[in-house]
């Protein structure tokens, strides 16, 4: 069977989650590999959550927030951006490709952009192959974070 990546996205309630909703309302189509965890702000995503997702076998993880300057909470997305370096550092430490993680901005009207980002990510991760930490059996789950 062809490899179907599992991609997890932490999506901010005010922008990217709304864009995902709009993509639906506009009947845009994108790969069904995405699972969204709704958060109030991209600034609420602890890098440890991202690493937990990888340790539990996510093939790709995204954090999707509002464009800089548009954060519903002043600058939560800027903090998310600052934490990007931390995730990159951790991925590097574990030998995971940096492309498996992506931070992207997407306003509530940008359904098109949402679809584009998700599709791109799915394709990119499909190309990378499975997450080496992906447990084949649940009891093999390896603690990464």
């Amino acid at each position, binding site marked *: 069977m062809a490899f179907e990546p599992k991609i997890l996205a932490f999506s901010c309630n005010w922008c990217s989650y709304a864009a995902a909703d709009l993509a639906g309302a506009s009947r845009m189509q994108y790969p069904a590999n995405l699972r969204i965890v709704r958060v109030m702000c991209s600034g609420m995503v602890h*890098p440890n959550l991202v690493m937990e997702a990888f340790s539990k076998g996510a093939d790709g993880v995204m954090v999707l927030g509002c464009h800089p300057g548009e954060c519903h909470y002043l600058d939560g997305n800027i903090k998310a951006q600052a934490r990007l370096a*931390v995730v990159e550092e951790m991925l590097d*430490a574990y030998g995971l490709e940096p492309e498996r993680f992506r931070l992207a901005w997407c306003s509530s009207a940008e359904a098109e952009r949402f679809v584009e980002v998700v599709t791109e990510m799915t394709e990119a991760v499909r190309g990378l192959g499975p997450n080496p930490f992906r447990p084949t059996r649940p009891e093999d789950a390896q603690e990464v974070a």
Partner: protein
Amino acid sequence: MALRVAEEGLSSCSGCEVAILNLGERLLALAPQLDFVHMPLLMDHKYFGQLGDGDLKRLEIPQAELGLVSGGVRNQEHLEVLQAMRANCGTLVALGTCATHGGIPALINGLANAELMERYYRGCETNDPAPDPTETVPPFLERVYALDEKVKVDIYLPGCPPHPDHIAEAVLAFLEGREPALPHKSVCDACPTVRQGKGQLKSVRRFLQNAQYDPAKPIADMRCLLEQGLLCMGPVTRAGCSGADGEAPRCLKARVPCRGCYGPVRQNGNQMLDMLNALASNGIDIKTLPDRAGGLLRFSGAHGRLRPRPAAK
């Protein structure tokens, strides 16, 4: 009947055993209730029956209710000793940060074994190049492990070394049949320095120059070292070094920032991730920190936290 105690040191420096001795008079007070049945470092007890009365092939570790193991698991011998300890001891205590998180020896986990031999054995200038030793030395495992990666651990007593107060508490609690009251918060919890917030900080530096403080004033008047711009691991490191009721954490008392020797606050936490995240969240560019993995995972490189660099694709 006295409580039988067995103790073993694996990949460690014997500091933890010294910490047991550091119980001092409390040890004397406890002694009638304890029967140390095995403790090679202090009691010259051998497990292969070197006196000719035992099986030279079989590890002989006496049965004990309480087993203390210091040090991480580096080689095949360590593994076998650990497994024997587990098999023969009712309750197993991981003693010291090497046992709980790999400790300093686990810093080598940043290198694969082949690389290690190349760099420190054959490639080192002061040694004569020689082939890898294969006999008389137990073979390496692929990396340094914390105890709980190989066997089940019942009680964690981190610290480099663990404070005698907490060793005493663990033993006493066991005698009294209750959960030991051990610190679970971070070093900051025991640190009296003045904290106001980290917002003014733009970068942190390593401890190459002294902190600012007035030597005439108590430590409670000194500004938090992290807020002074020094890389202090206090917020992400388990408390305990100040003992049961110490004035301040051990290093802080000497006005030196915490290096993280008690390992992460949460047993499965990650000191590097948590520290970098805390700095980044406060607007500090973490790329300015040198040797982040080596510095921040100095004591907790096991559990796969420190890994060899993957070969470039």
